[in-house]
């Protein structure tokens, strides 16, 4: 997030898109709803009738995957009505003219044809976003899990810059991170192209710095960016990747096209899974290493607003389970690297030295209750809750000219419905943790598919009837829930349930830049089962 969570309470307009905030980030939704009670306007760009829809001033209910068309049309309106921030654009950005030539092609009428959203609503939303400032944008995986995910995010950044909403209190472009340490895992360099602190592996100076800090020969650090998760699985299938070490992930349920995942893992020479449960993925491993859970060890986590927080050890790990960092260190020692870390704090001290954004953060400061959002570059630095104040990190903010592109797989005669996936309030990700809580499981015990009443009538499906859902990649059976939460022609399945894993159906098509799979759109058909 460019801005802290509390800033949602300072915005006069909130644009929420691709985020079912009240079910997936309930505490953030409290901030939003309190603001709305005080008069903040909510603009919702969202295909499903999520709980926030009832509070929206304008709800743009678009067909999944048509975000760029709607956003371009909003910006078309803002520019043609001269509601954009001329001074901000001139002083702080570049690329405006080229961008302007593209959005001029997106009239609200054209966006209506593409997205199904009424042109009048697009105009209304554009006027509110541009005039009732500061305006804050919140988005989540509904924006990014598309083949055009990068385009969608850039379009949101365009919109925010167009109205001078970046680098100001109560504004910003704010991705709501879905897991407790996605931000931290990225910051720490658990990515194929960067070391910690987003220092490029291809950069000579970065490799020199790391090899010195780690005390290894410079040549030993590879300079070519590695493979992403989906590419690693393809590499396993083709025989390029032979050994895979999986820590705390369950790709059998969380990745698209699980049939493909299973086949790829089966091709490996050696699979190690380090986890707290014998997950669907761990069952396929050659070696399974028992890890300590979050409450069984000390460690830091970085939340969606870049706040680095210390989590204490509450209880000992069960049996012989060990903290992940101890297991990794032990393996490094056996592979002749003298890693002798005695605590998580000692590792943090090392990573703070080599990670510019974390350099001023210490366990001691966190223990004393300091609230630190990175970048925190020096020992006494108070942290940086709002990014891009006065100046963008890259200097000038860049407008990107983005054309609308349709999703990779759209409904057709054989697969006439559009499937989108997500979460429910009671469960989390692949359910390995929440489904062990009896109360949560009792509230949401079964997988289901939301079907619009009109589609249900046409297919002869009645409430809670078992149905078979079939895509080009696989099929699952589950209960139908006849519900207007989804629009006609759209169906929704939560992906928490191994017994009807939504990712048997989803498409592996990737965003070409971010390599995110298109979980939010694929084509399926429905049949009555049993």
């Amino acid at each position, binding site marked *: 997030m460019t801005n802290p969570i509390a800033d949602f309470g300072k915005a006069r307009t909130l644009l929420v898109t691709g985020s079912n905030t009240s079910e997936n*980030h309930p*505490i953030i939704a*409290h901030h939003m*709803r309190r603001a709305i*009670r005080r008069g903040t306007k909510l603009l919702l760009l969202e295909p499903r009738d999520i709980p926030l829809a009832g509070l929206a001033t304008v709800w743009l209910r678009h067909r999944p995957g048509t975000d760029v068309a709607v956003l371009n049309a909003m910006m078309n309106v803002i520019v043609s009505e001269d509601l954009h921030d001329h001074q901000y654009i001139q002083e702080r950005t570049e690329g405006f003219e080229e961008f302007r030539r593209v959005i001029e092609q997106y009239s609200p009428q054209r966006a209506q044809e593409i997205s199904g959203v009424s042109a009048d609503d697009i105009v209304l939303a554009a006027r509110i976003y541009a005039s009732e400032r500061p305006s804050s944008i919140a988005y989540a995986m509904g924006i990014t899990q598309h083949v055009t995910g990068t385009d969608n995010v850039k379009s949101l950044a365009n919109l925010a810059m167009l109205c001078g909403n970046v680098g100001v209190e109560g504004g910003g472009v704010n991705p*709501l991170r*879905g*897991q*407790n*340490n*996605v931000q*931290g*895992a990225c910051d*720490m360099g*658990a*990515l194929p*192209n960067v070391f910690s602190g987003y220092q490029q592996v291809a950069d000579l100076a970065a490799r020199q710095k790391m090899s010195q800090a*780690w005390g290894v020969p410079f040549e030993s650090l590879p300079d070519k960016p*590695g*493979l*992403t*998760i989906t*590419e*690693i699985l393809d*590499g396993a299938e083709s025989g*390029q*990747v*032979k*050994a*895979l*070490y*999986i*820590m705390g992930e369950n*790709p059998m349920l*969380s990745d698209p096209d699980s049939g493909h995942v299973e086949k790829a893992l089966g091709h490996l020479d050696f699979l190690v899974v380090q*986890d707290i*449960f*014998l997950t669907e993925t761990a069952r396929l491993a050659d070696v*399974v290493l028992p*890890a300590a859970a979050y409450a069984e060890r000390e*460690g830091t986590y*970085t939340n*969606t*607003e870049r706040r680095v*927080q210390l989590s*204490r050890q*509450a*209880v000992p790990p069960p049996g*012989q*389970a060990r903290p992940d*960092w101890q297991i*990794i260190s032990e*393996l490094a020692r056996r592979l002749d*690297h003298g890693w002798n870390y005695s605590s*998580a704090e000692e*590792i943090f001290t090392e990573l703070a030295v080599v990670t510019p954004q974390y350099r001023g953060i210490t366990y001691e400061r966190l223990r004393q209750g300091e609230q630190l959002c990175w970048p925190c570059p020096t020992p006494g630095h108070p942290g940086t809750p709002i990014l891009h104040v006065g100046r963008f990190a890259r200097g000038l903010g860049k407008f990107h000219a983005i054309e609308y592109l349709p999703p990779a797989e759209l409904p057709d005669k054989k697969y006439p419905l559009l499937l989108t996936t997500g979460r429910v309030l009671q469960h989390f990700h692949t359910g390995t943790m929440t489904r*062990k809580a*009896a*109360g*949560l499981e009792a509230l949401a015990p079964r997988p289901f598919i939301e079907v619009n009443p009109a589609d249900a009538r046409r297919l002869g499906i009645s409430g809670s009837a078992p149905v078979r859902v079939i895509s080009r990649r696989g099929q699952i059976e589950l209960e139908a829930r006849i519900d207007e939460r989804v629009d006609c022609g759209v169906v929704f399945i939560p992906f928490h349930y191994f017994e009807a894993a939504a990712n048997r159906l989803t498409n592996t098509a990737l965003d070409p830049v971010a390599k995110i799979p298109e979980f939010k759109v694929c084509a399926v058909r429905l049949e009555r089962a049993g």
Partner: protein
Amino acid sequence: MSTIKLFIDGKEVEVERGTTILKAAGQAGVRIPTLCHHPDLEPYGGCRLCIVKVEGMRGMPPSCITEVAEGMKVTTEDDEILAARRTVLRLLLADHTYDCLRCRANLDCELQKLTEELGVREHGLIPVLRESTIDESNPLFVRDMNRCVRCARCIRTCQEIIGLGAIDFLGRGHAVEVGPFANQPIAESICESCGECVVHCPTGALSFREQPPRPDRKETVICPYCGTGCSIELHVRRDRVVAASGDRHSEVNRGLLCLKGRFGSFPYLHDPERLTRPLVRKRGELVECDWDEALDLVAQKFRQHRGEAFAAFSSAKVANEDNYLMQKFSREVQGSNSVDHCARL
């Protein structure tokens, strides 16, 4: 901020303008009994237990909603005030299921504490019977309107803090009770089961189904679910987590939790299916082994598959320190940049 001076029980006190008498008394170290008042919520003035006398003012104004004024002379308690408070309390008790030992709130009940503070044991009134709702539809908490004192703390919590408004007063007069729209079962309402109404209820009207034993200690952790980063206090007894509550010191969640944080952050820790020993595949089966055997085998295999033949999935669910070491391991030890995690999933 300008200040004013007033007299509380004859003692001169200087407080911020706009403060309530209740707050001013608190600052002066004088306790006034309350029930509907809660520091997280806007002043309400519902229960009338915090009544005081103000010189020159008619009647006994509730101190929680009466602003201080320059030179104000407040009496927080005398025989008349005490008698009025006891009457208020007796009326509440006459309309309340009076079986404390069986109540989930026993010994943690503000109504019960007030009976002790004000010396009221018997209400001495003839109760007017009414049928109150007992709603057990939610597997996480129970609503027993026989124990409700109509302080509206739950209603106000859901409106002011959660911003949801799932519940409100229903009906009129003596039949008033709290419930969701049309008094449907709470599980079928828009309620998000966060449990904050239960946390803010002064009696046993709202109670969690799970009744954990008293903790030996509490430890502060970061919630293992979404990216909000709420701070949780885990209640620990004999090295087992028995409950979770929101950390009021956190700037992120200020004591609040959602249902996953409150009910889902700890049961899985002690699940019998947790992995407790390393497993190695032998003749097709995963069998338990000791650490040395498992790690030696992994090291031997990793030695064979270095560079592009090696890849690692790190995790958005583990700490920064683990992620840092995993990428360091992949790059330094295995010579591979193929390390990634599920940020995209």
